[in-house]
């Protein structure tokens, strides 16, 4: 089966500019996640969707970050305006979770953002 697809793989922008990342999860996966991974740290959850509804966005900096999952499939994560500390790899993941714990998240290759 096709894995989680993300684009772009790399993006370099200047601070205060905007950027958008796209994710296409594995077909049929109800849950979609965006994680932020800063160099030297583990992935940190930004937002979790169940179908097209938000389950958890408690760690999403809502003054500059936004995310949507239209029609419960693809998702877009946007940063506007970007700050230097937003430099990180943005990982999208999906799972079949539908009420019981499974623990298996399927990750994309990530989008590496550098803010200058």
């Amino acid at each position, binding site marked *: 089966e096709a894995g989680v697809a993300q684009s772009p793989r790399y993006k370099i922008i200047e601070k205060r500019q905007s950027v958008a990342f796209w994710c296409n999860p594995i077909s049929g996966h109800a849950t979609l996640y965006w994680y932020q991974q800063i160099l030297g740290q583990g992935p940190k959850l930004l937002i979790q969707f169940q179908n097209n509804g938000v*389950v958890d966005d408690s760690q999403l900096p809502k003054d500059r970050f936004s995310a949507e999952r239209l029609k419960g499939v693809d998702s877009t994560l946007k940063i506007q305006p970007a700050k230097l500390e937003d430099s990180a790899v943005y990982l999208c993941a999906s799972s079949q979770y539908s009420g019981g714990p499974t*623990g298996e998240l399927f990750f994309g290759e990530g989008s590496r953002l550098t803010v200058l």
Partner: protein
Amino acid sequence: AQRVTQPEKLLSVFKGAPVELKCNYSYSGSPELFWYVQYSRQRLQLLLRHISRESIKGFTADLNKGETSFHLKKPFAQEEDSAMYYCALDEYGNKLVFGAGTILRVKS
């Protein structure tokens, strides 16, 4: 807040030597714990989960609630085991909290 601590950033061992990657957690309920692995130029992927009590690629991990630990072990390291390993805790609803990760380097 729930936390996952991996005290070692880097663990370097010789091929054939035993490996133990440490993971400690803090969680108020019954934890669901996992190990994820990222090989060079590959995606982050699930290695094993404590609830399955399985051995994957020779690795095992035992949940010790008394010590709040979930260390990953392998009796004889192979060069292909070189990778980044992340311990993760499922808070609820498949929401994973990851540790900072440990690089395992297996030398020949």
